[in-house]
């Protein structure tokens, strides 16, 4: 069964805060949920399906369902790291298509900035029962260092340069200047990126995304409900997800699960990369954008650096307007998980509600995608394709 057109995104909301020292994680989830429901013209009592990931208090849908006093027929706590919310769009669409629920709520929130999580500098311990734990944590792999490994290998294998990576940040900053909520609204140049401190070889400070508190939420509904609401009709027409494993030590760290999730989503939607008018591509690090552009088929392997350096990601002049909210690099990366904001900006574009300076004229077809967890040690990847009806 295809899921094409079986569910619509009726509500999308990005919490405006970037620093929330006085709010609990549960409250941020709840405020995001209420924002998305208000956007759709629905209320908590309409929700009968709930989806969240490990950022939710208790890492399980039960606790937020109780906090919000939801009356549910379906719940899903799938966690695939930062791409979980893209995965939830697919799972909610499937649940709605199967009749398990009519109104699906997806939430994300977190407060790493308030909690002082120095994610880019210190290694994060997992848990002693995680099978990969002693084989990685023993070597103190902080996240910037790991992405440094990917960047340096990509540079060696394809001739990708630091300047080309910097163009990804430059593009994001050109968009962020128009976003009043962006954490880093200042336009930067390639020189600014290259002159910023090296965090780990291959990664400058400005190659990294921001660390922000905040949240976001989506409301997906069945077609009949979507048509009864007074919102533009944005429907899910393609989804793909995967887990790209570490492959017993025989993997290639220049490649990502976008090679699986992208083609699956394109096939279901019946479109090609050339048809996409706007793309939200998870940008935890600049190199990750280049690797996904290649995995999705927007560029040949090794060609994404040149594509970015030619200005193709910049709205208004480039061939593939991308992350027009400023993305994780400049706008927001709530809970250290960027999948949610990727869907939200794609919905804004399809509704014509993006900032006029970055709005793609007549945007009818958009893609959102991202990885979860960490490349090299096994990562999830999900892609969704959305269409304005």
């Amino acid at each position, binding site marked *: 069964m295809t899921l094409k057109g079986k569910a619509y995104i009726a509500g999308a909301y990005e919490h405006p805060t970037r620093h929330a020292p006085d709010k609990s994680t549960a409250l941020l989830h709840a405020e995001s949920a209420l924002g998305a429901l208000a956007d759709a013209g629905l209320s908590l009592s309409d929700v009968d399906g709930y989806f969240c990931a490990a950022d939710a208090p208790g890492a399980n849908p039960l606790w937020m369902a109780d906090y919000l006093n939801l009356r549910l027929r379906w719940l899903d706590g799938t966690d695939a790291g930062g791409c979980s919310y893209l995965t939830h769009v697919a799972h909610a669409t499937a649940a709605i298509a199967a009749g398990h629920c009519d109104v699906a709520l997806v939430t994300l929130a977190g407060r790493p900035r308030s909690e002082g999580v120095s994610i880019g500098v210190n290694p994060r311990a997992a848990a002693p029962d995680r099978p990969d734990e*002693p084989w990685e944590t023993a070597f103190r792999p902080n996240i910037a260092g790991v992405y440094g490994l990917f960047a340096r290998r990509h540079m060696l294998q394809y001739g990708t340069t630091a300047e080309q990576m910097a163009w990804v940040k430059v593009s994001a900053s050109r968009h962020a200047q128009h976003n009043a909520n962006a954490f880093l609204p200042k336009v930067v140049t390639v020189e600014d990126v290259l002159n910023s401190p090296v965090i780990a070889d291959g990664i400058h400070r400005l190659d990294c995304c921001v660390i922000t508190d905040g949240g976001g939420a989506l409301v997906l509904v069945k077609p009949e409900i979507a048509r009864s609401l007074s919102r533009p009709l944005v429907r899910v027409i393609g989804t793909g997800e995967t887990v790209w494993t570490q492959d017993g030590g025989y993997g290639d760290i220049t490649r990502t699960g976008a090679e699986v999730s992208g083609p699956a989503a394109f096939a279901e939607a019946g479109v090609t990369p050339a048809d996409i008018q706007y793309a939200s591509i998870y940008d935890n690090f600049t190199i990750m954008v280049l690797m996904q552009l290649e995995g999705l088929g927007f560029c040949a392997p090794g060609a994404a650096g040149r594509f970015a350096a030619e200005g193709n990601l910049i709205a208004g002049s480039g061939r593939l307007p991308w992350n027009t909210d400023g993305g994780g690099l400049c706008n927001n990366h709530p809970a250290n998980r960027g999948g949610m904001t990727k869907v939200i900006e794609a919905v804004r574009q399809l509704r014509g509600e993006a900032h006029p300076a970055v709005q793609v004229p007549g945007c009818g077809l958009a893609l959102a995608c991202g990885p979860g967890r960490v490349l090299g040690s096994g990562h999830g990847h999900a892609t969704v394709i959305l269409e304005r009806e």
Partner: protein
Amino acid sequence: MTDTPTAADAIAAQAASHPEIRPFWQAAAEGRFVLAFCTACGKPHWYPRAICPLCGHGGIEWRPASGRGTIYSVSVLRRANPPYALAYVTLEEGPTMMTNIVDCDLDELAIGQPVKVALRRQSTGLTVPMFTPQ
């Protein structure tokens, strides 16, 4: 590398005590670097586990490895105090593993460089397979 144990080091050491993988860490403590070879497909994999991730067979054998490999990628963590090198090393036997490169000039490290294993006892008691230029 600093010798001050972190919470992450402690959890890694605790995880390494699991019976499934204890032979690896026991060998490392005795100065031997071993790999898990599948008794069916014959290939070594990384990270070691009791079921071969390449063919699904449920039997492995711990065999001595050469300890030789080449740097597949390397990144020096410049903000750490002191800075250290995080790397992927492709072992002569085939698989690629995450590790650290030690006893080296951090600015001279390069992808493709030959390295050999350097077992290092940490303050948690865990002996960890790091590598050094050949």
